[in-house]
């Protein structure tokens, strides 16, 4: 029991030092941030489409087409975020 506790504390300490010295490409964080906006946008578009279809099921076909156009335009932003590291290499 005591041994386990000591080991867990040791593990926590080691993890802490490893986190503080974390290294790698900053682009990873950048892409993570770049996905937030498009994610919210796609969420809004899809949720509104579902609401509209629930109100007027006979409009489902046209609403879905419009939704796909909107989602495609928003998705392009997220994918531009994915493309930027290849374009702006140091």
């Amino acid at each position, binding site marked *: 029991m005591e041994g386990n506790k000591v080991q867990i504390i040791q593990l926590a300490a080691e993890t802490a030092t490893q986190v503080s010295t974390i290294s790698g490409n900053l682009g990873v964080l950048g892409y993570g941030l770049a996905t937030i906006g498009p994610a919210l946008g796609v969420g809004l578009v899809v949720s509104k489409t579902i609401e509209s279809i629930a109100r007027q099921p006979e409009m489902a076909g046209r609403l879905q087409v419009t939704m796909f156009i909107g989602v495609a335009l928003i998705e392009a932003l997220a*994918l531009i975020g*994915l493309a930027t590291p290849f374009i702006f290499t140091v």
Partner: protein
Amino acid sequence: MSISEAIWSAAGSGDGFNGPKIEDEFYPQAIWFEGSIFEINRIMLIRLLVTISLIIFFTILANRFRKSTQTGQFVPGRFQMLGELALNFVRKSIAHEQLGEKDGDRFLPLLVTIFFTVIGMNITGIVPALNLAGTSLIGLPLVMALAAYVTFIYAGVKKHRMTFFKTALFPTGVPKALYIMLTPIEFVSTFVLRPVTLALRLTMNMIAGHLLLVLCFTATHFFLFNVDGPFKAMAAGTLLFGFAFTLLEIFVSILQAYVFTLLTTVYIQLSLADEH
């Protein structure tokens, strides 16, 4: 060995696990004509294979159609049914829905070509032994985006002559002073961003999908063969994820073909539309 060391080494943060690299995955070694502009590598071979299979598929289909109209046997077989379904999907629910019957049929050859090229080139990403989408390098999507670009400008100029550029760059019903701000935005969004996003959307979707699949399956290989002890069981998890992402890739391939064709149609429709 402490617990943390075991975890870190099992997670592959040492020199054991090598993730996929862009230059290895998408720029494979040349097979023939190395160094010349006709260099053939794996992606080029896949593209040629897809082109040939599409030509064969549609030749057989066209022969079936012709034979059925000549003999008067209109009950289609299974193969012909599939072709009619796919072609009618592009014609009815993309072209006619957005452009109307007359203009829809006018631009149908381009739309059908784009739809089936994209679908064929995308689906190779999950076909065993090929495992790389023909559209995962920017060249092919760029060509198709340029075809769409030329077509929607042609459609606008043919119908409205020079007023097409006027209405595209100077939208009506806006105070004149706002044109200083609005015209550059309209120019960039219509004449620069449209083709660029068409090409980028397709390429980046395929690159991201391929990298995800490679990551899952290399991780499975790594856990199965390079890791000892209980962490070997992680291989089952990564294999399951790989399978799930393969299904997702099939969906994405078809969706991207649909979106590419639909956006081309919408751009043509926007330039055909009368002044508001």
